[in-house]
């Protein structure tokens, strides 16, 4: 509770204490600008990592409930083996439905790679069976054994090898995003600390006079802390607003441009950017306080 009281005191301010520290133009503008730039970057990193995580999660979900059975067999064996596979699937628990993918659908799937005029009838393209799972899915090991017995040309692909790298990529992207945000915050704290130290050093005479008159360190520090906290908060607020406008004007997600589009916030994620200015203010408060007391102890 004490910390909240201190923060409230800082925000509510003391006009007299504020007046004892002379206005410092350039340092002030630099701190505000740095906070704005860093907040801008944080919003974009946040948006990017959330969007990538969302995309990977979506892929994972889509692939997680489906499997594919590929039948590579001579032309004469294709239909009997397909029917055998469907029969096996019908009697396997955990399978919701299964269907043979038509030639037209296969042509459409291959179109991006081979063009629209692919003579699919003349090519030895394997037959694909799409399997939709239910519940916790089938026993894949048992299913593979049964398929190899009933349809030797059938190969079951439960998408694990596709899914795993996506899950790993999503996790790594989230961690990378978090680390980036922490690094940006750390850099901002370092900049604010340096700016506060420089402001304190530049105001050596002010500190001497205040000490001569009986000012306690906490009084001197408070004047600087309040100034830097508010500057950082206003800067971060401006940076956040600008970045959110940038995110808002980004194109919406579409199926064709999923990798590049859809960079933005959805649902409750919109709250996250609004936490940046108070978070930056909190960090600036402690960074300046630490710098102020350290400097005051040294020059004392």
């Amino acid at each position, binding site marked *: 509770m004490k910390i909240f009281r201190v923060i409230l005191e800082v925000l509510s301010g003391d006009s007299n204490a504020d007046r004892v520290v*002379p206005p410092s133009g350039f340092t002030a503008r630099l701190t505000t600008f740095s906070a704005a730039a860093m907040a801008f970057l944080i919003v974009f990193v946040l948006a990017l990592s959330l969007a990538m995580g969302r995309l990977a999660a979506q892929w994972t979900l889509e692939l997680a409930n489906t499997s594919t059975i590929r039948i590579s067999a001579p032309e004469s064996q294709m239909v009997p083996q397909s029917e055998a596979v469907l029969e096996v699937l019908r009697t396997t628990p955990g399978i919701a439905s299964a269907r043979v993918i038509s030639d037209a659908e296969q042509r459409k799937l291959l179109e991006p790679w081979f063009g629209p005029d692919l003579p699919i009838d003349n090519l030895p393209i394997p037959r694909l069976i799409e399997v939709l799972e239910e519940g916790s899915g089938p026993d894949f090991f048992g299913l593979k054994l049964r398929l190899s017995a009933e349809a030797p040309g059938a190969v079951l692909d439960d998408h694990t090898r596709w899914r795993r790298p996506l899950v790993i990529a999503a996790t790594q992207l989230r961690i990378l995003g978090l680390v980036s945000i922490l690094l940006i915050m750390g850099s901002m704290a370092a900049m604010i600390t340096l700016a506060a130290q420089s402001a304190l050093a530049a105001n050596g005479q002010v500190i*001497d006079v*205040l000490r*001569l*008159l*009986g*000012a*306690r360190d906490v009084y001197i520090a408070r004047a600087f802390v309040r100034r830097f906290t508010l500057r950082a908060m206003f800067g971060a607020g401006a940076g956040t607003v600008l970045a959110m406008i940038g995110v808002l004007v980004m194109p919406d997600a579409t199926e064709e441009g999923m990798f590049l589009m859809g960079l933005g916030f959805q649902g409750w994620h919109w709250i996250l950017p609004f936490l940046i200015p108070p978070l930056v203010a909190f960090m600036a408060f402690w960074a300046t306080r630490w710098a102020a007391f350290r400097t005051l102890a040294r020059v*004392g």
Partner: protein
Amino acid sequence: MIELKNVSFNYGGWDVLSEINLQLRRGSFHFLTGPSGSGKTTLLNLCYQGLLPTTGMVRIFEQDVCEMTRDDIAKMRCRIGVVHQNCQFLDHLNVRENIRLPLVVSGCEDEITLSNLDDLLAWVGLAERADALPAELSGGERQRAALARATIMSPDLILADEPTGNVDWEMAQRLMALLVELNKMGKAILIATHDLNLIRTVKSEVPARVLRINNTKLQMPGADL
């Protein structure tokens, strides 16, 4: 109030003060004299923990200065008004704001009314210059402003280093009259000065004692003019 026991002070091996013994009691009035560079300013600095003794003990308001915390020092300085030779001010604040600064930093602003402040400004002859910035003041005006700032809190002790060095005789007498009034209210005063006329004037009103620093030593109190 202030007690120095066998206090020595040296800068890089060079003795400035040695074996100083001094007691400043409530209501006492002392002048500190001596040639330039004899250590008068150093002695004043020792009296408010502006400097720490090399050896010996300094006690201010019953507390050993070497054992004081930073907050103790701040509290102690609220009870001491200091006028330096090179009067330092906050250059961005005007004279009025600078003079009321001790009240601001100690949170006692309500204890003095605006008219008290105006009276004080008038007493030191700065009523017309209240809104001027320190950079716009002459040397004498700065000294008067510094004295006003040192006395506004009605401190228990006033330490002044050549407070009348840059003012004319009439103003010097006015400033001394202010200090004499404060002394009569029980405040202890220690003034470093070369001005023998001023000392004589004050001694005609209050039982002031003169201390002299010579060859790093303090000549015994009582060696009056």
